[in-house]
């Protein structure tokens, strides 16, 4: 317990450190001795070698998701990929209809993009998922109209880690000639992605959740049947006109390498991470009034999102200063804003406020998990000893029946 280095990083869904193997490859593409050329330079070997490195990375992305390398468009990250996919498809297919369907639990990169399209005159349905965070085809069917041109549903949720049934939704979308976009920022290296089988038209990726660098991503754009996009970034016509801008060789090489490693190691890695996650869960689950947020079965191995009833979230985060974790409440504002994802699952404010997201990754150790269990258990116990709500709960008072003197 004593030789654990503090603070312990358990926020792998926010971002990951770059794998040293990836960093080494990236470092080869920077200086005069390295592969620094512009991949678009056609007249000399500096350009050709850079282009070869980009092509190799493109193949590495394609290999992980079983796609054709010509279906990969480099971007600056999942935010840009989401914007390009959703705005690009909506603008291109506007003549066909103006209705878009997405989920209330999507990342802001999707939600805010849809809000912008609403301002441009599109109609957007934000579906509330089931209590476990999942959406069914029937729920989508119920809101689909003859105007629906696009469905955007994320693969893995960043807060609660639940995995949507992309396969079934894809079948439904294809049958109804609706473009299907999937934000897969959180799923590479965690869930198998086979675009030979999945009827997904557009898929967003980034490198920095998979032990690659921040600031680089990709959009998968299906060739058969062909999906068209209106470019959002205009310039030199790179990436077949879909996304102009000089390619960042070092970033792209890093993304390729981290996806290559993910492809090779994900099976064994996920087994180890699941063992750690279960160890964490088993260490916490026997406390009273502890609730897991999101479906436990359709969930990535490394996520545990859990609410501790009768404990206030900010004080809990304060007690857990030795852990780098995410909380379901925004600590910096006077008006505590509980997580919109947990609210969409129907969690009440108190449970949403008291939630902690633990995300475990490649460099997490058993010792760190055991330390975390002890720390969290002690913090919850201490804060409950301080909590008048805990006393009332123990005395059998129904807190919903109390008339609170709100200020």
């Amino acid at each position, binding site marked *: 317990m004593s030789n654990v280095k503090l603070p312990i990083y358990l926020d792998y869904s926010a971002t990951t450190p770059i794998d040293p193997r990836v960093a080494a490859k990236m470092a080869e593409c920077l200086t005069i001795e390295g592969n620094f050329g512009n991949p678009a330079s056609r007249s000399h070997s500096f350009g050709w070698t850079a282009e070869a490195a980009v092509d190799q990375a493109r193949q590495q992305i394609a290999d992980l998701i079983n796609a054709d390398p010509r279906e990969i468009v480099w971007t600056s990250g999942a935010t840009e990929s989401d914007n390009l996919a959703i705005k690009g498809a909506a603008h291109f297919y506007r003549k066909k209809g103006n209705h878009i369907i997405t989920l209330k639990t999507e990342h802001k990169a999707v939600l805010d993009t849809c809000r912008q399209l609403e301002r441009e005159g599109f109609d957007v349905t934000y579906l509330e998922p089931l209590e476990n965070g999942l959406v069914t085809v029937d729920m989508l069917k119920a809101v689909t109209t003859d105007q629906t041109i696009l469905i955007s549903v994320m693969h893995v949720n960043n807060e609660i880690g639940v995995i949507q049934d992309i396969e079934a939704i894809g079948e439904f979308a294809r049958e109804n000639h609706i473009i299907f976009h999937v934000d897969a920022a959180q799923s590479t290296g965690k869930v198998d992605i086979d675009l030979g089988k999945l009827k997904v038209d557009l898929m967003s990726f980034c490198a920095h959740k998979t032990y690659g660098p921040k600031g680089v991503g990709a959009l998968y754009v299906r060739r058969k049947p062909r999906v068209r996009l209106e470019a959002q970034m205009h310039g030199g016509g790179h990436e077949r006109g879909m996304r102009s801008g000089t390619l960042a060789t070092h970033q792209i090489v890093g993304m390729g390498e981290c996806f290559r490693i993910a492809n090779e190691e994900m099976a064994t890695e996920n087994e180890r991470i699941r063992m750690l996650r279960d160890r964490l869960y088993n260490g916490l689950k026997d406390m009273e009034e502890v609730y897991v947020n999101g479906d436990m079965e359709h969930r990535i191995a490394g996520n545990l999102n859990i609410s501790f009833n009768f404990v206030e979230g900010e004080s809990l985060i304060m007690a857990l200063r030795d852990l780098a974790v995410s909380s379901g409440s925004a600590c910096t504002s006077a008006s505590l804003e509980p997580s919109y994802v947990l609210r969409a699952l129907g969690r009440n404010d108190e449970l949403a406020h008291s939630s902690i997201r633990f995300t475990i990754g490649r460099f997490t150790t058993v010792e760190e998990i055991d330390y975390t269990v002890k720390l969290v258990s002690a913090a919850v116990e201490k804060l409950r000893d301080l909590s008048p709500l805990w006393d009332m709960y123990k005395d059998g008072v129904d*807190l919903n029946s109390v008339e609170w003197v709100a*200020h």
Partner: protein
Amino acid sequence: MAYSEKVLDHYENPRNVGVIEDDLSVGTGMVGAPACGDVMKLQIKVNNEGIIEDAKFKTYGCGSAIASSSLVTEWVKGKSLDEAAEIKNTHIAEELALPPVKIHCSVLAEDAIAAAIENYRTKNQ
């Protein structure tokens, strides 16, 4: 969020946590609401001379809310009810160096004192 030394001290070592067994000499105030993120319960025990001789609290809330309630339990002890009612949120906020977004915690602590005093007075009319 950066916390002041005093907030951290009260948070790490809260003073006078607990419950005073209820009788006529005890005033209990509970203010706030779970949905707002803080609930404070403050109890005062008043002796025959009208002096607060003991105070205890329990708080559900952020570190600043816990520190504010812990601090007022120290401050009200030894005071008459009228003196205790003089404690204002500005004193609490100043003592704990609360940032603007946490001023509501000190307001809640002031409200808790008022509620406890009122409860005592109602019981002893």
